[in-house]
């Protein structure tokens, strides 16, 4: 190793880190190509991004490393996951290709790109400059000087861009409210208004849940032991899909009286 190549080599520790992380990163990146579920792909790329952050820190860019985690993993990928959950996460993609020839063309182009780019890198001759000083590396002040000095205009432009993008996203996903908002007050007042027509102030009772069945098509029993019809969903009742309460619980007396049959031993539940 010639002296002028001093800036071009790394410490042993860093080399170890690189050779551990790099294959894993490539594997994770390949996961993007081969996993069927989009969430898994997102996890793969999160791994790549966090590894990159570690590499940045190793490559004397600690600020950028931390920002990478905050921005990419913390915000961008979280947004991806968020959208994935909004648009249906269970859809796992089929990997069969539908466009004729696209798979081979894509693979060929990808490989070709890799080969050409690596070819360029290997052909290039690098002239290392003076390595970054420790103060430059460790202190975000150095970065801030460049950012708010030489690139202040770009910085402001990028700020405007961000605001514009946020506004754009708002406009794109905005749905016009067609009906006035139903506020809490409005709902409460409507309920009180509906009282004379047989409405209720409280929520309806939940369907019955018994040892034999816990389905929602079975009515609950009131305190007097009668089945409460309104506890079963109205749709099920209209469709005629409701079931009777278990006969073991309800017994119809001769005069139409209903009484609850005691199950099990006396007071067994209270023990």
């Amino acid at each position, binding site marked *: 190793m010639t002296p002028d190549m001093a800036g071009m080599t790394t410490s042993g520790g860093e080399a170890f880190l690189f050779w551990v992380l790099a294959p894993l990163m490539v594997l994770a990146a390949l996961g993007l190509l081969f996993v069927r579920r989009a969430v898994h792909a997102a996890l793969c790329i999160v791994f790549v991004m966090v590894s990159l952050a570690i590499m940045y820190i190793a490559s004397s860019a600690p600020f950028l490393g931390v920002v990478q985690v905050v921005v990419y993993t913390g915000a961008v990928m979280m947004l991806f996951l968020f959208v994935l959950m909004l648009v249906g996460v269970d859809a796992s993609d089929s990997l069969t290709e539908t466009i004729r020839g696209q798979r081979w063309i894509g693979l060929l182009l990808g490989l*070709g790109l890799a080969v050409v780019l690596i070819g360029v890198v290997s052909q290039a001759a690098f002239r290392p400059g003076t390595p970054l000083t420790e103060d430059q590396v460790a202190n975000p002040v150095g970065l801030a000087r460049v950012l708010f000095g030489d690139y202040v205009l770009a910085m402001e432009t990028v700020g405007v861009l961000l605001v514009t993008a946020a506004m754009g996203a708002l406009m794109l996903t905005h749905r016009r409210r067609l009906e006035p908002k139903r506020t809490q007050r409005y709902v409460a007042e409507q309920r009180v208004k509906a009282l004379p027509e047989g409405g209720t102030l409280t929520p309806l009772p939940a369907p019955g849940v018994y040892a034999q069945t816990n389905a929602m098509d079975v009515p609950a029993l009131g305190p007097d032991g009668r089945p409460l019809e309104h506890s079963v969903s109205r749709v099920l009742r209209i469709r005629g899909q409701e079931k009777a309460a278990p006969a073991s619980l309800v017994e119809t007396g001769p005069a139409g009286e209903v009484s609850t049959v005691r199950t099990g031993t006396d007071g067994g539940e209270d023990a």
Partner: protein
Amino acid sequence: MNDVIGYAPWLVGFPLVGAAVLLLGGRALDKWGHWIGVLASSASALLGGWLLFRMIGADPAERVADQRLWTWMSAGGLDVDLGLRLDPLSMTFVMLVTFVGTLIHFYSVEYMAHDPHRRRFFAYLNLFIAAMLVLVLADSYLVLFVGWEGVGLASYLLIGFWDHKRPNAVAAKKAFVMNRVGDMGLIVAMALLFAHTGALDFGTLFDAGDAGAGEGLAEATGAVSTLDQGTATAVGLALLLAACGKSAQFPLQAWLGDAMAGPTPVSALIHAATMVTAGVYLLVRSGPILDAAPTAQLVIVIVGTVTLIFGAIIGCAKDDIKKALAASTMSQIGYMMLAAGLGPVGYAFAIFHLLTHGFFKAGLFLGAGSVMHGMKDEVNMRGFGALRRVMPLTAWSMFFGWLAILGIPPFSGFWSKDKIIEAAFTGEGWQPWVFGGAALIGAGITAFYMTRLMTMTFWGRPRWTEPEYHPHESPALMVWPQVILAVGSIALGGVLAFGDVFTTWLEPSVGHVEHHEPVLSVPVLMGATIAVVVVGALVGYLMYRRDVPAEAPRGSVLTRAARRDLFQDTVNEGLVMKPGQGVTAVLVTADTGVVARGWGVLAVGLAGLGAWLRRAQTGYVRAYAASMAAGVLIIGAVIVLVATLGPTAGA
């Protein structure tokens, strides 16, 4: 004048802003928007009055002022500044346009009261005034051209204001097309001027540098003086063509009669104050060019003479009150052209007559409008008669207008028309006899048909029936403009002619020329004129004093010809329209047969090619991404190869 010229742009500005506000304001202005129009026009008139006052107060040598507003365009050798020129000539026109225009605005408030589109009407009126002011205030031919076209546009909009009626729309189109023919002349004139002098602004063309500014055009040593005879003649003839189009002179006179389709205030505006006077203005403004081209001058005189006789004959045969007045306008403008063609001796008289004519003709038209207003828009004079009893104010104002147009002393028309007839009798050889004689005869015919008009309308016995028509005096807003104009018809001529005050006033613009003696002595001519006029008037009165048949009698050949406007439309159709249609038909065949089919073949071929190429557009984003990636790949590969194999490899 230079200290106040800064206000001049507002002359144009007020009506222009008024038009913009009215057009853009939308329906919110429907209720009261017309007052904006009136206000804009009045403001312009008041400003004009103040400027006039300042100009009168100024030293005659300083009455010409130019203001350069900004550079309009700068292309190669052509540098056009947008500028205004205030001088006595333009000032005269400003006053005529804004004052009469404002009166017509007031009149229209009532006249158009029941029209649902009154706001739009006032917007067009304002636009008309603004365009006309640009025309007269321009300091170069190009800026003048802007106003020229603006006037054409505004007249098109106004004539066709009731464009839901087919004849109106056709009339508007006719006026527009015939004006375009005239515009060709102006464009050719401008092109010739620019080609030979390299300038289009009046300052360079007519004034002899700074020293010559305000010295008057008679001594002009501007760029025009370098024109050779032939070019000057060509320019003069082109300008004449332009003037013929705008001022409805023979042979481009056909649109004027049809233009009566517009609302009557528009007719008044077109015939009295704006539009048709533009041609005369153009010729007078271009005086130095005409002075250098005697042939052109002769042609102008001939055209003027022909038109004045032509119009007068047509006027005798028309039963439509507005068309009769329109023919009269044609004839009177013919007088002005005649005067303008006579050279420096006639310019001032042309403008003078134009001014007095503006007043009495506006008054006559407004009177006619008032009559129509009272008679349910009836225009046929055979259905009128004895209207003086029911609309006395209208009758009186028209009576004074009648006296003025006849040239009875001491009314306005006398002072101006008589001067023109006198001027027509100056010169040498056969010309004074022919032109002077024609002018004299024209005056007689004018007296005849105007008396006929008055007799059929206001005198004699009523030929209308009461329940069907209910003639009544018009509201105050319509009558008072008539009265004011009648006052102008009575007094304006005398006041301005007193001590040649008007001709002296115009000298800075049109130059001063020693009076030439006519071939006959002045008193003789004056007496002859008055005699001819009185005879004409008497004949007219006696012929139509008694009952007029409701149906027009068949009449002589000349009458029938005159009723059909002396076959002007037939001639136009035969000479221009039919051959044009023939040429067009041939061209259409050629176009569909050869050109269209050729391009069709090409298009089919291209469509086939497109259909084939279209397959590349799969609509799949990924396919497009693939082609993009391929491009990147190729570029990268080329870079690698060049770096590896190139001469600088390994550097």
